[in-house]
């Protein structure tokens, strides 16, 4: 039995990791709550009041903005889940099914902003799609005056969210499929006369859904609260709720921080309402689904097969979007409606390199600091579990989902206020700290699976051969975990590079990264420059993932037992 001191040392790493996640979230929530009711001493507001709520609701279009956040969030989540479910139902077990994972990973790694900019280049009135169709099919010699992006209904925003979130739900679903007896269920259901796709939806999906429920709610919270995708593709008059708040929060008029905080609270309410609607939807879908399953005959296979095209289509759009930013970054003169630029040139890259070096270095430093801290904390927590038993770890894993289940603006506005009050706002450290809140959960999840998969007898054999715990860790565990550690690092870097709002708010708008540059330029900047920034932004996580997959293969090229 452990003494209290040993129990503390066993739980300390998990507590540290939990603190890195929970303190900013809780501090941020308090920092949102107080100003939302009129208390923000930093700007001289000390008496509780409700004035900022009147200011919030007096804002033209505020109701529509809230409704747009709710509707695009729910629709994006539903469409992403639907396309994943229909695809898996139709394709599970086929040969292409295994390959789609490799296709989804690069899209998952691509930052939201870069992907949204690519879609902008694709579907805007002067975008690639209309260029390909003009003038021969459409008759347009000039970009038409129709809102294919930034449309008032938020359809372009919806598309951007679906294209970005579908690969995430797909990969989560594939992981969940390994944890349920999918093949047996499918065999039983098909032997009972159900066509395969119908059998999958009826027998396998309910089990899979239970496993991916957390990622689904994370997608919902993200979609309701997205800022960068909304700024690039979303409506502007009014925008969705989160970008509207951001206008106030970053305004030189500091008194607008109060209505912004009230709005952040409203956003949390909208996210909660979205979750409520979703849960009601789950219940309804379960009732309908049970009736369908109990109805016997397997109708609907043709519809499922047709719907299965949604996911490949969404992946195709993502790759076209990436190709579009790459093309614009090297495009020479390119008039509408020419399908291709007159010539390619490297001039934009050369011209932008000096201006982009600073933001690129900032992006990298923040990503490496946040990822490094996350890796150390995660490994320490998992090592403590391996040595001393579960301690606080299960609790930590549950807690780490918290920041993913809240809309970012809901607590980041408050975190900015808290950092301001502590005098920490504005530097690389503050931004890395804010990124850590989002990097930590993913690094932890990614590594905890790898730790669980490590044969526990190998470190025990090493100890019996006389190796100290430190040597077991350095000479046995770290080398065996090289690949998952590098993958976790790549995940951390990808999450960090993608962060827009934490960078903007914790940095006080003064720390320029590739992501903040990309979002700023997307509002009417030169497309070639925007292409360069987006490619640079996307390149960092993609290179990190490539390194994480190729490096272990090179290091272990003479060790067949480690080639997965």
């Amino acid at each position, binding site marked *: 039995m452990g003494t209290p001191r040993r129990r503390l040392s066993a739980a300390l790493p998990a507590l540290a990791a939990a603190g890195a996640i929970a303190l900013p979230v809780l501090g941020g929530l308090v920092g949102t709550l107080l100003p939302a009711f009129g208390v923000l001493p930093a700007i001289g507001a000390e008496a509780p009041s409700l004035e900022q709520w009147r200011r919030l609701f007096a804002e033209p279009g505020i109701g529509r903005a809230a409704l747009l956040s709710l509707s695009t969030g729910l629709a994006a989540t539903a469409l992403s889940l639907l396309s994943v479910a229909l695809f898996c139902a139709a394709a599970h077990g086929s040969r292409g099914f295994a390959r789609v994972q490799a296709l989804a990973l690069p899209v998952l790694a691509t930052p939201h902003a870069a992907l949204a900019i690519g879609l902008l280049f694709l579907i805007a009135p002067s975008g690639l799609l209309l260029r390909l169709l003009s003038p021969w099919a459409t008759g347009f010699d000039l970009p038409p005056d129709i809102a294919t992006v930034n449309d008032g209904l938020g359809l372009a925003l919806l598309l951007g969210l679906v294209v970005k979130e579908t690969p995430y739900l797909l990969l989560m679903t594939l992981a969940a499929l390994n944890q349920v007896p999918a093949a047996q269920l499918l065999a039983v259901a098909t032997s009972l006369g159900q066509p395969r796709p119908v059998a999958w939806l009826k027998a396998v999906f309910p089990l899979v859904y239970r496993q991916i429920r957390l990622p689904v709610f994370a997608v919902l919270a993200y979609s309701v609260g997205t800022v960068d995708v909304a700024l690039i593709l979303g409506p502007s008059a009014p925008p969705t709720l989160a970008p509207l708040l951001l206008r106030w929060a970053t305004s030189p008029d500091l008194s607008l921080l109060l209505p912004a905080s009230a709005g952040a609270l409203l956003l949390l309410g909208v996210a909660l309402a979205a979750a409520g609607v979703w849960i009601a939807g789950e219940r309804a879908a379960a009732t309908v689904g049970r009736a369908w399953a109990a109805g016997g005959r397997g109708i609907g296979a043709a519809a499922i097969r047709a719907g299965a095209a949604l996911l490949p289509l969404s992946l195709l759009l993502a790759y076209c979007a990436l190709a579009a930013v790459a093309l614009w970054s090297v495009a020479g003169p390119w008039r509408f409606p020419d399908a291709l630029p007159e010539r390619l040139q490297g001039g934009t890259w050369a011209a932008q390199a000096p201006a982009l070096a600073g933001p690129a270095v900032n992006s990298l430093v923040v990503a490496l600091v946040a990822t490094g801290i996350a890796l150390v904390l995660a490994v320490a927590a998992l090592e403590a579990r391996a040595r001393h038993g579960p301690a606080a770890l299960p609790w930590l894993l549950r807690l780490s989902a918290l920041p993913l289940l809240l809309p970012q603006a809901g607590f980041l506005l408050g975190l900015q206020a808290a950092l301001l009050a502590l005098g920490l706002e504005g530097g690389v450290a503050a931004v890395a700290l804010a990124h850590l809140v989002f990097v930590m959960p993913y690094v932890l999840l990614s590594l905890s699976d790898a730790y669980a998969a490590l044969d526990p007898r190998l470190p*025990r054999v090493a100890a*019996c*051969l006389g190796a*100290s715990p430190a040597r077991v860790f350095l000479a046995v565990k770290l080398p065996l975990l090289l690949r998952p550690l590098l993958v976790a690092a790549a995940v951390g870097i990808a999450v960090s590079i993608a962060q827009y709002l934490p960078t903007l708010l914790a940095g006080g708008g003064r720390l320029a990264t590739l992501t903040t540059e990309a979002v700023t330029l997307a509002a009417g900047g030169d497309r070639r420059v925007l292409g360069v920034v987006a490619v640079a932004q996307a390149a960092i996580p993609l290179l990190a993932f490539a390194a994480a997959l190729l490096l272990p293969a090179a290091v272990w090229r003479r060790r*067949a*037992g480690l080639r997965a």
Partner: protein
Amino acid sequence: MSGLLLDALSVSVGGRRLFAPLSLHVPRGEVATLMGPSGCGKSSLLAAICGTLDPALSAAGRVSLDGRPLDGLPPERRRIGILFQDDLLFPHLSVGANLAFGLPPGLKRAERRARVEAALRDAELPGFAERDPATLSGGQRARVALMRALLAEPRALLLDEPFGRLDAPLRARFRAFVLGHAAARGLPVLLVTHDPAEAAGRVVRLAPEAEADAAC
């Protein structure tokens, strides 16, 4: 008392004992076999002797080796070698580096190499030092695993069903190889198995705890 001495050793999970407390003396150079169906805590018993018991389990009773009590000692200071059904060679190290892993610290380079090469000769694998363990046959890997355990200069050897994975003809040869090396070094050997044909020396049946479930 020389050899391996277990005194009322038991392992419990959540306050429930896996088997009745076991007392056993294995003198130097002798073998004892612990029999019992799978799943009744044989491997946990060996882990308790090694000091590598899962944190979710707890051990009670005493273990001593050549008169030295082991209770509370970390596994790396107990000097107990163990072989499992799987060879558990470190997949990231060469055969030679696996063998050298447990060599006592402080040896000169030439001496380390000489000991590894002598072990490879004993295992009938001369010249295999640079090989990737994954390229060896099952029997070769099993022999390397034994030599790796012996190079760490253990004072006792625990065998956790180490012959189960090998084909029948190979199994008898490897069993003789292991027991021969252990006897030559005068090691007390505790062998755990569920197969009566593998047993050697004195046979002890691990008694299920009275109220334990039917699995044991």
